């Protein structure tokens, strides 16, 4: 005997004035940035000419200007060129680690959510324990095993981030499993295989997609935080975290060496978050 009165119960539920298309401007900017980023990763020569590694000691520490829009670093290398060429490794690290994180997360979340009561309880405990090791600490421990470099960095960040994503996906999968439409499909007489194919997988894919979209930015931050500590690609590499770390020593004289790689990381994070949010709202409000 629930509410017969279907009118909105509160003031806030009435149609609200919204800034015209403000959300979509953000989304458009995010997509534009991501397109440029992917372009830079695939074909950096289109956006920057020159060699990210060519040293020009005479031009060291040039402030941003006409010649070098974002300035040069301590060895006179052009920052813009280095940033563009660094997009590839940053993106590879971000995407690689989120893929690894999600695979590890799924390998726990799926049996936990769909494997019966005992598995559910076990996985719950596993997440509870793993969750008490912060991502960066876990990743730091793992770098001890694998030493430094791009690939070890991906593994460290991927595994370090897995418990967080695992717990989130686990919760969402449980909601899907207990959803009314799963029971309705069962009561119609559908087989478990059919339910898995038609309901569980497509519905579980949505949170996975959102986590993936939002996660790339986050893993890039974690990875750059580790390469900042010297655990990523070794110094001359055009990798954002490494570049940022190098600039730290010259922060008093040449802020731009540190500033611009950071901006690139922040923009990537904001763009992926915007995209992920859009997907989330889209799935929650619209029909198929």
């Amino acid at each position, binding site marked *: 005997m629930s509410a017969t009165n279907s009118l909105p*119960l*509160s*003031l*806030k*539920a009435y149609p609200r*004035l919204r*800034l015209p298309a*403000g959300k979509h401007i953000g989304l458009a900017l995010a997509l534009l940035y991501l397109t440029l980023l992917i372009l830079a990763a695939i074909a950096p020569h289109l956006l920057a000419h020159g060699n990210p590694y060519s040293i020009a000691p005479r031009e060291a520490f040039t402030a941003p200007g006409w010649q070098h829009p974002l300035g040069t670093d301590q060895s006179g290398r052009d920052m813009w060129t280095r940033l563009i060429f660094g997009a590839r490794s940053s993106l590879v690290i971000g995407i690689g680690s989120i893929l690894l994180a999600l695979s590890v997360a799924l390998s726990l979340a799926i049996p936990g959510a769909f494997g019966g009561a005992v598995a559910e309880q076990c996985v719950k*405990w596993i997440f*509870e*324990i*793993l*969750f*008490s*090791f*912060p*991502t*960066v*600490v876990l990743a*730091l*421990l*793992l*770098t*001890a*095993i694998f*030493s430094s470099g791009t690939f070890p960095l991906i593994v460290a960040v991927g595994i370090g981030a897995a418990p967080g994503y695992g717990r989130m996906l686990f919760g969402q999968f449980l909601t899907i499993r207990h959803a009314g439409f799963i029971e309705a499909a069962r009561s119609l007489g559908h087989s478990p295989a059919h339910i898995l194919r038609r309901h569980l997988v497509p519905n579980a894919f949505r949170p996975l997609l959102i986590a993936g979209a939002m996660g790339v*930015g986050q893993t890039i*931050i974690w990875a*750059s*935080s580790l390469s*900042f*500590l010297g655990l990523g690609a070794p110094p001359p590499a055009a990798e954002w975290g490494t570049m*940022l770390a190098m*600039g*730290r020593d010259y*922060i*008093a004289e040449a*802020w731009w060496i*540190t*500033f611009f790689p*950071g901006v690139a*990381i*922040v923009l990537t*994070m*904001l763009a992926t*978050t*915007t995209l992920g949010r859009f997907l989330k709202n889209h799935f929650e409000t619209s029909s198929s």
Partner: protein
Amino acid sequence: MIPFPNSGFVFLKKLMIRVGGACLVLFAAATLTFITLHLAPGDPVTAILGGSANPTPETIREIREEYGLDQPLMVQYALHIWHVLSGHLGASFSQHMPVTDVLWQQAPPTLKLMLSSLVLAWGFAVLSVTLSARKPFFDSAFSSLETFFAGLPQFWIGIILLWLFAYQLGLLPPAGTHGFLSLILPSLSLAIPLGGFLAQVMRESFKTTLDQPFVLTARARGLSDNAVRFRHVLRHALLPGVSLSTWAVGALVGNAVAVEFIFSRQGLGRQLFLAVSMHDMPLVTGIILFISVVYILASFLADILYVIVDPRIQEARA
């Protein structure tokens, strides 16, 4: 009329589950460090000797015996767990002093840093959420700010703050562990992203709560807008923030690694990084265990806080 018969029993049961969980976490921490450092390349003996040139085979054997490294792996593991459980954390290879002493020395600066960051982050979140619902303009401004804050990497904010306030303006010390002033910049670097994140979560909860019928009832009672927001809605909005704070304590320790580096602060994060790179197993174990203990205590505290804010004990939170 007693509302909850056997509520004492329920509480006891929850406590048992909590303590059991805590033991499991500690056990896992000890195991994790053991596995990690045995898989790690390099001989611990080298680490123990601290790079002293050309040790004689004699010395190496002595050290192996002294640290139990000549035992089979399972025995080493058992010994390791036994030592951890009995509180014998041993001596740090790299620091040449008992691990407990290192912890005693390094923990306070990190705890101070964490606490001040947590307070700052909470302050920002509460302020941002309660202020912004007042005017549509504030709302969009603050929620954009939160998204921006939440996306900032701690180490980058740290460097930018360092550049601006220490080098350009010269207002605050660029490095150091002692004194209130040296705490400001590192705390801000950690608090800004965390505050943004907390605020996002609390804002969502604040908005859903504003749509609840009891808010309408409260207004219909003659309550002012502020009273409704602060006395009713805010309390509901605090709940997800409280649950997140446990996680936040963990994340703060992790992120403290880079921040302590930037500001050349003493602390567990920096020490952990050094210990890992030197394969100093006892010290790594000690620090990880310490972090786990802090995490466990934080989640105890969060549970108690949660019950204070939300006295409904229906849902088993154990």
